[in-house]
Structure formats: structure tokens, C-alpha cells
């Protein structure tokens, strides 16, 4: 486990990007936005499996909340239709509100959990909701830096996110 303590700004200044890992979407429940909770092998030495899975599960629950089909979403849809959608010029949709919550959550997670371990999570919205991009940093100035994740990811990434999400 990385023992160097970083905060976010220090990370950006002193660390160099070693590699990136992409957590793909999980389509087993249809087209709703969900990410695979499968633990990428490249992060094995960097972060505890449980922490990572908890982060992804929380993100998935946020997206489920945003896309929930129920009374409030119908009400919003009908109200918007009745105003010929002009109401969207002054009102934020429920989905947009949840996306803002997700941004704040990711920022928080980066500051508390990921940056101290030399990792950085990118908001999926900036990647078209296709992937969660995790940047793995190698500390340039530390003497005993932990091994970066760039070692032969070809063989290991074959198992990560291959056929099927089950």
C-alpha cells in the first residue's frame, strides 16, 4: 500500500501519470447507467478492494436515483410537457441535480481516499458516461515509490472487463 501522503494539489504538481484504468459500464440490468464493480487488477497494490467497490456501488446508486422512473419523474415530465418544455429554461431537471451531487461526491472521494493513494477518479460525465477513468500516478520525487500499474497490462486487462458482466 502506498505510504506517501498526497493531497490533490500536490498530486498534480509533483506526480507523473503512470497509467489509466477504465471501469466499463455494466449492461446486465438494461440500458440504465451502472458501472462494473469488478476490481481492476492494476489497482491491487494501490487501494483496498472494498473501498473501491464501495465507491462504485455508491456511484451506481446515485445514477439509479437519477434515472428512477416513478411518480416524481412523471410529474416533472408532464409539467414540462404542459409548458411546452419552456420550463427547462429556468429549472434544472432532477437528473442534472443528481449529476451535481455525483460531482461533489467524486471530488470528496478524490480528496479523502484516492489522492492520498496516488489515484484520481474522473467524473464519468466527462467521458460521455461510458467509463470511470482512474488515473494512476507515480510519485516523481519520492525515493521508494510503489510499483506503477504500467507493467504489462495486456495480460491482466484481458480478465478485467472481458466478456459479460456477471
Amino acid at each position, binding site marked *: 500500500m502506498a505510504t506517501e501522503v498526497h493531497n490533490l494539489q500536490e498530486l498534480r504538481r509533483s506526480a507523473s501519470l503512470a497509467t489509466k484504468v477504465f471501469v466499463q459500464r455494466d*449492461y446486465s440490468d438494461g440500458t440504465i447507467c451502472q458501472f462494473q464493480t469488478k476490481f481492476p487488477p492494476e489497482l491491487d497494490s494501490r487501494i483496498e478492494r472494498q473501498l473501491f467497490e464501495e465507491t462504485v456501488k455508491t456511484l451506481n446508486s446515485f445514477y439509479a436515483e437519477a434515472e428512477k422512473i416513478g411518480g416524481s419523474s412523471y410529474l416533472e415530465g408532464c409539467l414540462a*410537457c404542459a409548458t411546452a418544455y419552456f420550463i427547462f429554461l429556468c429549472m434544472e431537471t432532477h437528473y442534472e441535480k443528481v449529476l451535481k451531487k455525483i460531482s461533489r461526491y467524486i471530488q470528496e472521494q478524490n480528496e479523502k481516499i484516492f489522492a492520498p493513494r496516488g489515484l484520481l477518479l474522473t467524473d464519468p460525465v466527462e467521458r460521455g458516461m461510458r467509463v470511470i477513468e482512474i488515473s494512476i500516478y507515480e510519485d516523481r520525487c519520492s525515493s521508494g515509490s510503489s510499483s506503477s500499474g504500467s507493467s504489462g497490462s*495486456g495480460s491482466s486487462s484481458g480478465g478485467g472487463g472481458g466478456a459479460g458482466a456477471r
Partner: protein
Amino acid sequence: MSVMVVRKKVTRKWEKLPGRNTFCCDGRVMMARQKGIFYLTLFLILGTCTLFFAFECRYLAVQLSPAIPVFAAMLFLFSMATLLRTSFSDPGVIPRALPDEAAFIEMEIEATNGAVPQGQRPPPRIKNFQINNQIVKLKYCYTCKIFRPPRASHCSICDNCVERFDHHCPWVGNCVGKRNYRYFYLFILSLSLLTIYVFAFNIVYVALKSLKIGFLETLKETPGTVLEVLICFFTLWSVVGLTGFHTFLVALNQTTNEDIKGSWTGKNRVQNPYSHGNIVKNCCEVLCGPLPPSVLDRRGILPLEESGSRPPSTQETSSSLLPQSPAPTEHLRSNEMPKDTSTPAEMPPPEPPEPPQEVAEADK
């Protein structure tokens, strides 16, 4: 002391987006490249309704009821609003993969399929997923370098992958996809009602007036009536039919694309896994479900290149969490990606900004 005012020209992301779209109002409006038929649609609707309000409505409001033009106006405004919403909004375009992501996926594919010998065409890249107990295949898009989500398709006219792709409609000048399908449906529905309304009241007008001054005199007095009736007659057959077809699709939670390909019909095919089995539930989901915002971020500001004259600290950066040092050009790089497989390693130094249309054409 003289003060120099330097005007910074900000480059917004829409200027660098790949694909064949046109953008207006500094990225707020997004349409397909060919807009001729869209202008025709606008002209027909505006023209017919102007004639109706100018001639028939004046007579009918007095003779029958003032509610007639009021209701017509409401229908007209609603159909124009939904038409403009359909035409100007992002249909649900999936942004192309950045070089790092594309390389990651390529490595995964090679690991699963094994390396392809030189000169041989690689097999079509398909991933199998199980959705609600049925196997659905995900196809790899060679242009966008992503595995398309289920129900997404690549529009060859706009050169974009679109989520829940329905069809590309030249009459609205845009693709119809996840984000604007409900506007499209409401547009054709309100247009059908408007057409029926105008047609019916034109007939009523001609009938009423003919009783007083005769049929030929009526037509001579308001020749626009003939034009309106003709336009409405031909529009009725096409638009009402289309509305019926889309009502059927909405009730079954299918897209035009799936219907044409016969994805869920036929003996040996799987059943539609996205349908709730209940017509009301399907309609509610498609028309009143949550509306995802656009992920294209057209109006985001692109950071200037490192090789430019301004130092990085004075730049306006986008809200990305990416650090400054390795990737201020990452966004630019992705949009200049050539069509053949790109490597994340040595990319050429960023070139001065080119208009998106030229980049797309160069790729072809």
C-alpha cells in the same frame, strides 16, 4: 500610462467536436449538416398557419366562436416549440473515446481474441451481455472506438453514435435519439392535430361562406384556402400515418431502427427486453421518463495549448479533474484522431484549430 487590452478568444468544445454536425449560437444549437428540408418544414407550417390566421380565422371567429383561433394558436405554438426542441437539441450523441480509452479497449480485445495476423481483416468485434435473461450483443464502433451501448447506433449522416437511436429525420434536420425522441413524438402528434384542425375548419369555412356567396366566389375571395387544403391533405396522409406508427413503437418501447432491422420480431429472435410488458408503463417511460442531460459539453471551454503564447495559469480550463501537466491537449488530441487506430504514445504536436467539417472530411 497606456493600458493594453488583450481580447482573448476562447475556443469552445463544440468547435472541435468530430462528426458532421453544425452548431449555432455559440454551441447552444446542434443540428445535422443538411438543413434544406428542415427549412421546408418550417416554411410549410408557418405559411399554412399564417394563411389560416389571416383569412379563415377572421371569418370563423366572428361567425362561430373566438375560441377557434385561440385553440389553433395553442396547437401551432406547441408544435413549433417541439419542432425546434427536436431540431436543436443533442439527440444523445456518445462522445468518441479519447486515445487512452481506445487503446485500453483495443488491448482488451486483443487479449480476448488473440492477435490478428498481418494483412487479414480483423473479425467484427462483438461482446455478449445478458439483459433480463436474454443475450444482447454489443458491437464495436470503428469510428468512435467504443463498444456501443445496447440500442445505440451509429448515424452515418451525422457520423456520431447516438444512444437509443431511432432514425435520422431530414424533416427536422437532426437525428432522433434518446434525448429528443419525446419532442419528436409530441411534434408529429401536435402537427397531426394541427393539420386535422386546419383542414376541418377550412372545410367548415368554405361550406359556411358558400351558403352565402357561392362556392366559386368563396374560392376567388380567399384563394389561400385551396393551397391550405392541398397542403393539409397531403400532410395528413404522411404525418398522421407516422404518428400512428410511432404510437405503436412507443407502446412497445421499440425504436424505428429496431423495427426496421427486425431485432425483436420473428420466430427465432429474442423478445424485446426493454419493454415492461405494459402499454401504459412503456408510454410513461418513453414520454415522461427522466431526461438525461447532454454529455457533449458543447459550451465547455477548451484549454489553450502549451505551445501557445499564454502561460497555463491564466487559462480558463474546463471543469475536468485532469491535471495540467500531462494533458492540456488531451481534448484536442481526441478530436484530431485519425480514422485508423491511433496509439496513445507519441502524438504529433497539436495543430492550430481547424473547423470540425474539414477534419471529418479529411478522415473520409
